[in-house]
């Protein structure tokens, strides 16, 4: 009767973690998109994810908080940290900001590595599997909704103008420092919630998952997907999570082909895979000429 059901059960028991990871990575790519949309090249988001993951896991394990409360706390904890470090760090821009946030990420990783309550290098084990598919779907949808609304408002326009020309934005009456802080803190909140979701389906977390490599991975997802819209980061997060799995049959050549795909995309689609605006502008120009 149920070879189909059996097949699905097999598939799900093997791949549910992968599907969940796609959702979490999409959220991470969106959180990076938010800071990038304000012109901030911040590499702190992996660390914020880690703070969210550890804060939520510890609240579950030690304080017995309910899952919704733990998710919220997972977002609030890194947001508070972002608020404190954002004020001095966001005075930097470009690669200097990238370096400072990178250093912050390392500080967070090493702190987690050396604390007792976090289990140090052993990580935290036995986190209850509270995350379900619809949790991730709902929170991802909520993230997309909020970012979409922001984009369509004066806040989104302020972000974009800061990205394009900070001085001109300032002279349009925009409080640049405040909007940068807003993007940074909101981005850290999203990353923290993603971390909390992640912690509650992987059973186990360790400091290694929130280091430099992950920070760069998330940045790659966003940039590869394209930063001009919300579809890009989701696409980038999905592709970069699935690609290594799809290439599994290549065995030893897997990472080689994975890298080649990235290089090709960057070479031929420098603005990312999803770039609707250029296409539309090109179309208008084209049809305008042909008329």
């Amino acid at each position, binding site marked *: 009767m149920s070879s189909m059901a059996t097949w699905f059960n097999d598939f799900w028991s093997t791949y549910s973690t992968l599907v969940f990871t796609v959702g979490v990575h999409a959220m991470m790519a969106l959180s990076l998109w938010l800071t990038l949309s304000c012109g901030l090249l911040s590499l702190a988001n992996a660390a914020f994810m880690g703070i969210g993951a550890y804060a939520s896991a510890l609240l579950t394990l030690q304080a017995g908080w309910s899952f919704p409360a733990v998710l919220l706390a997972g977002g609030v904890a890194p947001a508070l940290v972002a608020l404190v470090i954002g004020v001095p760090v966001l005075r930097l821009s470009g690669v200097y900001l990238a370096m400072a946030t990178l250093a912050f990420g390392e500080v967070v990783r090493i702190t987690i590595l050396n604390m007792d309550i976090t289990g140090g290098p052993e990580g935290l084990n036995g986190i209850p599997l509270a995350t379900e598919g619809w949790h991730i779907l709902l929170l991802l949808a909520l993230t997309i909704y909020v970012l979409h609304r922001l984009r369509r408002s004066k806040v989104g326009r302020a972000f974009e103008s800061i990205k394009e020309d900070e001085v001109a934005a300032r*002279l349009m009456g925009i409080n640049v420092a405040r909007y940068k802080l807003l993007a940074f803190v909101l981005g850290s909140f999203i990353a923290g919630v993603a971390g909390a979701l992640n912690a509650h389906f992987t059973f186990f977390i360790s400091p290694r998952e929130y280091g430099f490599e992950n920070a760069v991975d998330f940045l790659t997802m966003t940039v590869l997907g394209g930063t001009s819209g919300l579809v890009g980061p989701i696409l980038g997060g999905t592709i970069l999570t699935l690609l290594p799995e799809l290439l599994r049959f290549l065995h030893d050549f897997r990472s080689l082909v994975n890298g080649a795909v990235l290089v090709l995309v960057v070479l031929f689609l420098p603005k990312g895979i999803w770039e609707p605006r250029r296409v539309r*502008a090109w179309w208008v120009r084209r049809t305008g000429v042909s008329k």
Partner: protein
Amino acid sequence: MSNTLLSIRNVSKRFGGLHVLQDVNFEVPAGSIYGLIGPNGAGKTTVFNLVTGLLQPNGGNIDFQGESLLGLPSHRITHRGIARTFQNIRIFKEMDLLENVMVGLHDHLEYGTLGLLFNTPGYCRAEKKARERALELLTWVGLDHKADLLADSLSYGDQRKLEFARALATEPKLLLLDEPVAGMNPSEKTVLMEEIRNIRDRGYGVFMIEHDMRFVMGLCDRIAVLNFGRIIAEGNPDQIRNNPDVIEAYLGKEDDQ
């Protein structure tokens, strides 16, 4: 006194050992067009950067409507009613024209986080009004038919016009124009001249830096001449035209070959 919009008193600015401005004094009256001219490197753009808060003076005072602007961040100065354009155009190239102007309306869009998140009637009304206002300003500079193009695709002259519309969107009382006609053809210059006069006639103050002498002399009510960081002359166009110091600064002395 009550007629003075912007007053610059004993302002000096040094970059390291270089005195860019020394003891600069002049007043921009409301409802008039004021010109600041001078040879390249005289310090004209520095005056604009001081007024808009991008730089702070080493001495002196800058008052706008009787209140000091010293120490204020740029966005607060914009809020007080000063807008500017740039010598090297600084539009938002990856945004369309309408969005560019709507950024200028930022301060005048009043809706809270809830309105923004839930698309409330208040939010929709404010956004719609801003959109209409932006389109009106684009019409005013003759760019309304390009409202949904990326600013990047505009010609040099059109980019200047866009910057002009964007500056007006902040609803300034004083508009600072840094070489507004650079890169424009003669007929565009004539149109812009008319537009600037219109702004003045509505009671705004206009303060401009310009190299095009015909444009300045034809348009400005008063002119100050800056040379090597000092004001060497101040007066109406005729006085400036006949001032020997000004002639010397621009053309050199007769025995100076």
